[in-house]
């Protein structure tokens, strides 16, 4: 199944895919620590807002592979987000589940902005997306 992928110059990576499974099943894969470990990374995740946890990637010579996280939003079967801090860079991962005729659309937004205030961030992001449209054109002219 092909992903909807938006690789343009935004600060947020967006990937969407429809899975032929109900939202409840996807939710388990996203929130049960042992299932999460099977497809993402070993972890001590618990679906509780404010809980800190860690994903552990394979260590590399210059990095211990730890990704420090903190749960932000837990809305069962609908929305899950956590802060994701790796290599000193703070970011935010947001999962959104939407039931569709053929199963569930899973949307991942991984943003390089640390969004302490979600509301403020959303306002800012609107202008940012618009801005990057202009910038992409400009980069096309000047850099390539």
């Amino acid at each position: 199944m092909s992903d909807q992928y938006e690789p343009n110059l935004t600060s947020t990576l967006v990937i969407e895919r429809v899975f032929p499974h109900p939202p409840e099943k996807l939710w388990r894969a996203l929130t049960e620590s042992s299932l999460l470990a099977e497809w993402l990374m070993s972890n001590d995740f618990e679906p509780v807002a404010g809980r800190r946890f860690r994903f552990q990637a394979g260590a590399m010579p210059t990095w211990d592979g730890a990704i420090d996280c903190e749960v932000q939003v837990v809305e069962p079967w609908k929305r899950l987000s956590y802060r994701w801090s790796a290599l000193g860079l703070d970011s935010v991962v947001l999962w959104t589940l939407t039931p569709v005729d053929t199963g569930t659309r899973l949307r991942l937004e991984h943003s390089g902005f640390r969004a302490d205030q979600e509301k403020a961030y959303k306002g800012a992001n609107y202008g940012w997306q618009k801005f990057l449209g202009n910038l992409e054109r400009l980069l096309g002219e000047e850099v390539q």
Partner: protein
Amino acid sequence: MVLSVKQAEAKPVFHALADPTRRGIFEELTRRGEQTVHALTRYAGISQPAVSKHLSVLKRANLVRHRREGRETHYRAEPEALAPVIDWLKEYGVFWRERFDRLESLLERMDP
């Protein structure tokens, strides 16, 4: 794990652009070319010291460059400095799509 240590280079760029005022200033410079601090102050509608502070954050991230001419300081945008952000997006794009594939096969194995 595909994440490279180079990712850390994106940090000052993300930091500089996380603020809407700084983003506005950077946008204005990319859109209109070189501007004086005075012109940017009029555009941003905040005090000149505040604008100067924002400009110094943008400068630390190499997103702007400046030159002095008489009593005026002129700033211009350096959009190439966005490269670490673009690399960040590419790396995570590869990473997450591979994880989506693994999630798909896990879902096939799970009980309904």
